[in-house]
């Protein structure tokens, strides 16, 4: 899908990267915990998250995330939107829940991406 189509589909406001509507969004990852974001191995992924901490945009830069969709009506601080604009990373914000947002994107052909297998403490 194109970024513009994503924004329409999930009824999102565009907080940064308004000029990048043609950007192709084909892989996504839903995440809240920072450590989970760092487990991403696929590049050129779109993050779907409720985490608006300044860390999210910095990790997005380190990992080459191409766009971020904030859910549950969350909006990051203006300084984060400004940073995202500088980096060329579009930010969207939707009032929809993460579950609904993922469902809509998945139903429209956005595929899951890979992450590093998680080791858990048993």
């Amino acid at each position: 899908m194109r970024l513009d189509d994503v924004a329409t589909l999930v009824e999102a406001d565009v907080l940064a990267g308004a000029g990048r509507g043609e950007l192709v969004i084909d892989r996504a990852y839903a995440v809240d915990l920072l450590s989970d974001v760092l487990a991403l191995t696929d590049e050129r992924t779109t993050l779907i998250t409720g985490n608006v901490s300044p860390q999210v945009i910095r990790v997005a830069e380190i990992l080459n995330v191409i766009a971020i969709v904030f859910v549950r009506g969350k909006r990051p601080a203006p300084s984060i939107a400004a940073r995202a604009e500088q980096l060329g990373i579009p930010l969207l914000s939707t009032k929809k829940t993460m579950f609904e947002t993922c469902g809509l994107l998945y139903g429209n052909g956005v595929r899951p991406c890979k992450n590093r297998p998680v080791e858990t403490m048993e």
Partner: protein
Amino acid sequence: MTLQELARALNWDIQSEGASPEASVSGGYCGDLLSHVLASAKPGEVWITIQHHANIIAVAQVVGLAGIVLAAGVRATDAVVDRARTAGVPVFSSSDTAFALAGRIERALAGKTC
């Protein structure tokens, strides 16, 4: 659709059966911050998360969630499985990421192939 049907359709690994496998699932909730789940998740929803220890069972009970499915190959710790069995809370594990789980559950509940 019941949780049991959903689990079978999506190939989830069962870690804890749960007290009422015939209960129907009203929707899904995706998220890992426990305080957010407590505030926003609704009774009857299946919770998609990678949180596999601490208080997930208590959270599921407090909210009245249908059950918990752990994403991306995460498995509940033994302590959590014990608590889940005692509390009658269903816990599953799936190799799908949270994004894929949300997508597939949503389609399954809407009656489409997943």
